[in-house]
C-alpha cells in the first residue's frame, strides 16, 4: 500500500520536474491576462500527462485518485513550486461534482473542457439580500418556451472576471417554500444581458465580481436536474465534494506559523509576543492533526473551517502587533503589486475567509445543531 503511494509520488515528482516551466513566475508577474492564458495552458499540459481532475472518477476522464494520493500531489506541487490551478477550482470541484452527480449527457460534455482549462467557471449563488440566508435568493427565472428568462443580481463570485461559465441558482417558483422553488442552471457568461463588475475588497485586489442579469436567456437544456430541485443539488455538491479543500491553506498556515515562531524565539522567555505566537503555533499544529483526522473520517468540516479562520486571524494579528509600526508601512494598492507575504495583508485577507463559505457564526450554529443536537432557533 505504502509502496504504491511512494511509487505514485515518484511518478508525479518526475512528471512535474520535466513539465513545470523554468521561471514561469516571471512570465506571468503583474499581467493578469498572461497569467490566465498561462493557467489554461498548464491545465491542458496536466491533462495531456494524465494529471488533471484528481478527484473525478476515471470514467469521466479524472484520475480517481484516493485522498492520500491527492495529498501527495499537493505536497509535490508545493515542493516543485508548480503553477496554481486555483483559477479552475470552481470548475474542478463544484462544477465537476454537480455535472458528474446530476448533469445530463449533453451537460457532461463540459467535463473535458474543464479538465483542459478551456472553461473557467464561477459560482452565482450569493446575492445582496441572500448571504448566510442563501435560500432567500430572489434572482428570478421565468420559463419562456425552450428558454428561461433570468433577471437578478449575484455577488461574491470569485474569479468571475475571467470565467466563461457560471453555476447559477435562481428562483423558478416564487410561491413555494423558499428552498423548494430554486433551480440550478449553467450560464454561458457571454449571453446578452450579463454584466460583470469587479468588486474591490479590503486587501485591495478584486478577486470577486458582482454579476448583473437582465433578461438573460438560458436554454432549458442548461438546467441541471429537475425544475425546483436546485437547492438539494447545490447542497450535495457543497457538502460532499469538499475533499482536501482546506489542505493548501492549512499547509500554508503551518509554514507561516513556523516562520513566526522562529521570528520570536530569540525574544526573552515570558515575552508577550513570544507567548502569543507560541500559543498560535501550538494550535496550528493541532489544526494540522485535526484536519488529517477529519479528512480520514469524512467528518463534519465546520470545526475545521471555524478553527482555521480563527487561527489565521489570530496568528496574523499577533504578528502585525509584534511588527509594530514597521508592519504598518505598506499598501494594499495598487492591487497588482507584489502581494502576499506581509502579515498585514494576510490579516486583512483572514476577515474574508471567516465570512465566505459560511461565516464563523453559521459554523457555530451548524456545530450546535448538527453535532451537539441543540434545538434550532425558532423562525
Amino acid at each position, binding site marked *: 500500500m505504502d509502496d504504491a503511494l511512494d511509487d505514485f509520488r515518484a511518478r508525479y515528482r518526475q512528471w512535474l520536474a520535466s513539465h513545470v516551466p523554468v521561471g514561469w513566475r516571471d512570465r506571468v508577474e503583474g499581467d493578469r491576462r498572461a497569467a490566465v492564458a498561462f493557467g489554461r495552458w498548464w491545465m491542458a499540459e496536466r491533462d495531456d500527462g494524465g494529471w488533471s481532475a484528481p478527484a473525478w472518477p476515471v470514467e469521466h476522464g479524472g484520475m480517481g485518485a484516493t485522498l492520500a494520493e491527492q495529498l501527495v500531489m499537493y505536497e509535490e506541487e508545493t515542493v516543485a513550486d508548480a503553477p496554481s490551478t486555483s483559477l479552475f477550482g470552481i470548475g474542478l470541484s463544484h462544477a465537476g461534482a454537480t455535472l458528474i452527480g446530476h448533469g445530463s449527457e449533453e451537460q457532461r460534455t463540459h467535463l473535458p473542457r474543464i479538465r483542459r482549462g478551456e472553461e473557467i467557471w464561477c459560482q452565482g449563488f450569493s446575492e445582496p439580500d441572500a448571504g448566510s440566508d442563501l435560500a432567500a435568493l430572489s434572482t428570478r427565472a421565468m420559463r419562456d418556451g425552450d428558454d428561461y428568462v433570468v433577471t437578478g443580481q449575484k455577488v461574491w463570485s470569485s474569479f468571475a472576471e475571467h470565467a466563461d461559465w457560471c453555476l447559477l441558482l435562481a428562483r423558478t417558483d416564487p410561491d413555494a417554500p423558499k428552498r423548494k422553488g430554486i433551480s440550478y442552471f449553467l450560464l454561458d457568461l457571454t449571453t446578452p444581458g450579463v454584466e460583470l463588475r469587479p468588486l474591490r475588497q479590503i486587501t485591495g485586489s478584486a478577486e470577486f465580481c458582482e454579476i448583473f442579469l437582465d433578461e438573460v436567456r438560458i436554454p432549458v437544456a442548461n438546467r441541471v436536474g429537475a425544475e425546483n430541485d436546485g437547492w438539494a443539488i447545490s447542497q450535495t455538491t457543497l457538502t460532499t465534494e469538499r475533499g482536501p479543500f482546506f489542505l493548501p491553506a492549512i499547509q500554508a498556515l503551518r509554514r507561516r506559523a513556523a516562520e513566526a*515562531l522562529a521570528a*520570536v*524565539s530569540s*525574544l526573552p*522567555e*515570558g515575552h508577550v509576543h*513570544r*507567548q502569543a*505566537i*507560541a*500559543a498560535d*503555533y*501550538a*494550535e496550528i*499544529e*493541532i*489544526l494540522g*492533526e*485535526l484536519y488529517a*483526522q477529519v479528512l480520514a473520517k469524512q467528518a463534519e468540516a465546520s*470545526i475545521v473551517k*471555524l*478553527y482555521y479562520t480563527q487561527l489565521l486571524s489570530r496568528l496574523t494579528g499577533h504578528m502585525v502587533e509584534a511588527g509594530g509600526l514597521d508592519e504598518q508601512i505598506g499598501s494594499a494598492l495598487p492591487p497588482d503589486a507584489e502581494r502576499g507575504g506581509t502579515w498585514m495583508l494576510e490579516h486583512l485577507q483572514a476577515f474574508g475567509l471567516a465570512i465566505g463559505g459560511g461565516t464563523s*457564526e453559521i*459554523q*457555530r*450554529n451548524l*456545530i*450546535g*445543531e448538527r*453535532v*451537539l*443536537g*441543540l*434545538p*434550532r*432557533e*425558532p423562525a
Partner: protein
Amino acid sequence: MNELAEELRGVVREVVAERSGDELWKTAAELGWLGLEIPEAHGGSGMGFDLLAPVLDELGRGLASIPFVSSVVLGAAALRFSPFGDEWLPAIASGEKRVAVALDPYVLDAVDADAVLVVADDRMHLATVTVTAVPTYDVTRRLAEVRVDELGEGFGDAALIAWLRERAAVALALDSHGGARRAMEITVEYAKQRMQFGRPIGSFQAVKHHCANMFVAVETTKVAADTAVREIAGEPGHPTRWSSIAKAHAADAYVDVASLGIAVHGGIGFTWEHDMHRFLERARLDQALFGTSAWHRDRIAS
C-alpha cells in the same frame, strides 16, 4: 492496541462512576491499572503509555482523587531507572505503596506517600522528607510542602528528569481533556433541558455558540493529547514539543470550557452543590501544575 485501550476506557469509566478514594485505588490495583507500564518481572503487565492514556482521561472525566499520576505515571517510571526497582515496583503495582515525585514547589500527592522522589543537581533522589499538607481550591487533589531532610543516593540524569516532566505534562493534558469533555456534555444537556422565555436556552445563538466553542476546545484538546501520547511513547532522551503543545492547550481549553459551563448554567452553576465549579478548580490546578501554560509556551518557542 487501540481496541485494548477502548476496552480499558470502558471499564475505567464504569468503575470511576461507582467508586472513589481508597476504594477506587484498591480496585485500580486489582484490575491491574497501577502496573500497566511496570515490567512483568516486577508484577506489572509491561504495556506502554498508550494504555495509561485512557485511564488518565477517564480519571479526569470523573474528577477522581487517586494518586495515579504521581505513583504510576511518574513514580514507577522514574524508579524503573533506579537501583530501587526490585523493592518498589511490585509494591506500586499492587497499590501497597504510593510514591510522589517533587517536580513542583508544592508536591502533588506527597501527603500519604510512602516515598517522595526529589530532584537535585540534575539527579533524582529517594529522599528522607518532611511533608506538610497545604489547602487547595481543587478539593479533588492534595498538595504538600516537602522539606528534604536527607537527599540519599541519586540516580538518573537530566534526560530522565526532562522525560518525567513531559510525561507529567501529557498526563495532565489527558486529565484536562477528560474533565473538559464531561463539563461540555453536562452543559449541552442542560442547555437542551433548561427552559427560559418558553424555549430551551440552547436554541438561543448566544448559548449555542458558547456550546460550539466548547466543542472546538474539547475536540482540539483530544487531537493534541492523542498526538502527544504517540510522540511520548518511548524512553528518555527523545524530547518532543507535543508534550508542551498538548499541556498548554489542554489546560487552557479546560479552563475555558469550565468557565463557559458555569456561564451557561447560570445561578445553579454558581452553587457549591453543582459539579461545574469542581471542573473549573481542577482545570486551574491542571494549568498550574507541572509547568504553567506560559512555561510550556516558552518551551515551544525554544
